[in-house]
């Protein structure tokens, strides 16, 4: 397949200006003739809906929850990066760009990442003007904190609820556009198919989750901002409704899926306690600014943490990485935690946890200061684990958190299907093989507020106003197929619920497609996923009917997608016989067990093409060229 990333010409720092200066514009009077569908109301979807509506386009916005304010961006705790350099610590657009591309282990595009760093400052301005209550210094100016993977303080935050405040900012602007009639909002709708007419994205089919009806919506362009797929691991920090469905449906219609195996395992989550566990709760990575990570030096040391003297404690991150210490990037922190636990040094009930200790920080700054910074996180931990982290060190363990992989998009955030745009976590473009902390919020809002409003225009100009209506046979067929798929799920009438099968899938993924991967494990995973898929279609049990609210049925539909998609993840991980960022192939490590890249053979984006149910997908490669940065082996020592 031929595909072009459409990187603008010129020096890196001028590409975005060049693009904007030369792009085709939609005449202001013509904007109201275009209808655009936006699926998802997280940071990317809400900000895109808002900005496009303000420009004059007619927007239809869809969300899966009862209100657009609930999208999972709301749960992001720590902060949002920008290259403002307010602390005067030598930050710059270049440095943010460089940190991001290095953090992603040189598996993302220079041009996209540079643009992200460029617009980062506008995001902070925009959010402040909306009334987002960022943390401030006594003098009234904005406060910054540092975050993993960077040596400058560039993270803006609103207590431990930054995602909530940014999302509510976007939601309030969205509400204003709804009131103005420029955005039509559809809640409790799940996208079940993408409709193509003459090879272009012309609409979607959504299932009304309250009535079970299939609804058709036509438009001139479709924007997917449906988030990531961390829930394939069953236990993750994602919300329960996060799913791969929308982007997977697009993949089945021909959109390329890029780097599906690139998933981030977040190092600081609350460890799990039992089989009934439904999710893992993330504790903001900002905790690593003041907490010290350690395990007992001797395997099997079962003493309570307070009884373990300094000399018997192993502050393994500080020892191994003297310059970054507890602030190494997420993948490094996660892998090291697993390594310590695998060596028998883990703590807690399951032996799969490490300590995050605030005793020194409390001694240094006083309890009040720590409480002010992390109070809500400490309370949350105390409530879930029933231990007071001011007294006893926290226990943490890595959990699936973010997916860098996503639908392939070009510089305009357009997929290889004309008219289909993908924003936020749903695309693959900016974080390479590993995302740095506080960069997801930045990317979501960059895509929605400052990129798509420009980059959608050339497509609309070229393609013109569509005359396709929902009466077109493509809509009838897609709606019919979606309904048939639902009926099929209802008719199996087996003995296992979707949750039960999903839990088994999660275990396969954690064991073989998680923090460390190898050829035999990945091959085993492919086999296990295939047989679990068989089991699903033979033995699924869905209660109730398909004509009213039925969460079990929704979960079954999402799991059906997962059971195909996870195989693609494993196949991608198998094909990439190098380590990079979060993707650690055990066959490719340095002597110190760090990820060892193979730039000669794998300096590319793996863009997978659907070949039909049960058929091996086709691998396309977009070579990555680095003209401005030198590819180095990441080192945080």
């Amino acid at each position, binding site marked *: 397949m031929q595909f072009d990333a459409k990187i603008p010409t010129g020096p890196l720092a001028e590409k975005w200006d060049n693009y904007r200066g030369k792009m085709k514009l939609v005449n202001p009077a013509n904007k109201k003739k275009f209808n655009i569908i936006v699926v998802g109301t997280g940071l990317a979807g809400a900000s895109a809906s*808002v900005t496009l509506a*303000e420009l004059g386009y007619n927007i239809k916005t869809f969300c899966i*929850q*009862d*209100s*657009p*304010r*609930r999208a*999972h961006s*709301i*749960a992001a705790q720590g902060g949002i990066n920008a290259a*403002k350099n307010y602390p005067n610590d030598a930050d710059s657009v270049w440095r943010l760009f460089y940190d991001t591309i290095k953090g992603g282990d040189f598996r993302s595009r220079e041009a996209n990442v540079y643009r992200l760093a460029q617009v980062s400052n506008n995001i902070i*301005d*925009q959010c*402040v*003007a*909306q*009334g987002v*209550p*960022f943390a*401030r210094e*006594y003098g*009234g*100016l*904005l406060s910054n904190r540092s975050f993993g993977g960077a040596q400058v303080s560039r993270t803006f935050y609103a*207590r431990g*609820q930054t995602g*909530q*405040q940014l999302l509510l900012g976007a939601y*309030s*602007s969205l*509400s*204003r556009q709804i009131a103005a009639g420029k955005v039509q909002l559809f*809640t409790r709708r799940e996208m079940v198919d993408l409709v193509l007419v003459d090879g272009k994205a012309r609409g979607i089919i959504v299932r009304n989750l309250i009535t079970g009806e299939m609804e058709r919506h036509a438009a001139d362009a479709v924007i997917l901002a449906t988030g990531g797929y961390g829930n394939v691991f069953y236990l993750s*920090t994602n*919300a*329960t*409704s996060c799913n791969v469905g929308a982007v997977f449906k697009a993949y089945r219609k021909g959109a390329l899926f890029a780097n599906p195996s690139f998933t981030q395992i977040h190092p600081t989550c609350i*460890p799990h*306690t*039992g089989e*009934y566990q*439904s*999710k893992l*709760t993330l504790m903001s990575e900002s905790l690593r600014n003041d907490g010290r990570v350690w395990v007992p030096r001797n395997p099997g040391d079962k003493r309570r943490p307070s009884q373990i003297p300094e000399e018997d404690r192993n502050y393994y991150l500080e020892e191994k990485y003297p310059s970054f210490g507890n602030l190494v990037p997420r993948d490094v922190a996660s892998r090291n935690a697993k390594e310590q636990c695998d060596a028998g040094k883990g703590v*807690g009930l399951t032996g799969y*946890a490490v300590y995050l200790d605030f005793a020194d920080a409390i001694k240094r700054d006083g309890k009040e200061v720590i409480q002010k910074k992390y109070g809500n996180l400490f309370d*949350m931990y105390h*409530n*879930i*684990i*029933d*231990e007071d982290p001011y007294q006893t060190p926290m226990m943490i363990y890595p959990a699936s958190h973010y997916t860098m992989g996503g639908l392939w998009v070009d510089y305009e955030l357009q997929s290889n299907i004309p008219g289909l745009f993908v924003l936020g976590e749903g695309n693959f473009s900016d974080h390479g093989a590993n995302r740095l902390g506080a960069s997801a919020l930045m990317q979501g809002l960059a895509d929605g*507020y*400052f990129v798509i409003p420009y980059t959608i225009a050339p497509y609309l100009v070229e393609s013109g106003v569509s005359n396709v209506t929902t009466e077109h046979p493509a809509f009838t067929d897609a709606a019919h197929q979606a309904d048939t798929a639902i009926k099929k799920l209802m008719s199996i009438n087996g003995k296992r*619920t979707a949750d039960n099968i999903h839990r088994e899938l999660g275990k396969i993924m954690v064991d073989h497609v998680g923090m460390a991967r190898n050829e035999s494990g990945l091959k085993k995973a492919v086999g296990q996923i295939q047989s679990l898929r068989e089991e699903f279609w033979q033995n699924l*049990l869905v209660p*109730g009917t398909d004509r*009213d*609210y039925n969460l079990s049925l929704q979960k079954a539909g999402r799991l059906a997608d997962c059971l195909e998609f996870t195989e693609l993840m494993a196949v991608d991980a198998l094909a990439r016989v190098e380590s990079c960022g979060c993707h650690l192939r055990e066959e490719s490590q340095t002597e110190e067990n760090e990820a060892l890249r193979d730039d000669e053979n794998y300096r590319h984006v793996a863009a997978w093409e659907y070949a039909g149910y049960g058929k091996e997908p086709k691998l396309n490669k977009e070579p990555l060229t680095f003209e401005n940065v030198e590819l180095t082996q990441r080192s945080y020592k």
Partner: protein
Amino acid sequence: MTHATNTINITLKVWRQKGPRDRGRFETIPVKDIHTHMSFLEMLDVVNERLTLDGKEPVEFDNDCREGICGMCGCVVNGTAHGPEKAMTLCQLHMRKFKNDDTIVVEPFRARAFKVVKDLIIDRSPLDKIIQSGGYVSMNVGGAPDANSIPISQVTAEKAMDAAACIGCGACVAACPNASAMLFVSAKISQLALLPQGRPEAAQRAIDMVRTMDACGFGNCSNERECENVCPKEISIVNIARLNREFFKASFVSDAA
């Protein structure tokens, strides 16, 4: 986690209602062997798994993030919205707060403005309508000045943040004898009235949002303070006092109608 895990047996009395037009009823479900480390929603998951395997329909309830921030979950548990613990959403309530042989009554958030969708799920879209009537700063993307050109004292920023922490769950409405949404409305009005960015529209906002609240069928505030008591984010009724001041001031401002 260093504590031993215990199991308890409980009896659920849970509200079942097929749809907005169904009258609804309580169903009694005996539930055995519940781990005390489970969250309340994980207990409901276990109940639903068992009901499904028994060929019965599971109890539908809204939930999403399960970490207390999305505002999607919430039921009245033993008469209290979000259950017995202070400052906590239902998803953060753990079964260790209950005793063996407890009977636990679970109902949806009830209010004239919230229609029951099914079982414990309600329609909270009237809260969105209130925000649509003015819960924003009217500025378009692109025209914002440098973020540090608007200094805001730390005290003011913290107060605004206290109000902005509202998760829109609707517990305040469910707890209020008048089913008023005043705490919800006042949280947004306070946040924006405290900040300089929100001042230019403060008067019109107060009038529009209060009017919309009334039109949606929410009741009035009669200072019962039940809302504050159940709010998982501890939004204070000081915000209602601020709303009242803003609303009162607005009636003297000539350009607000």
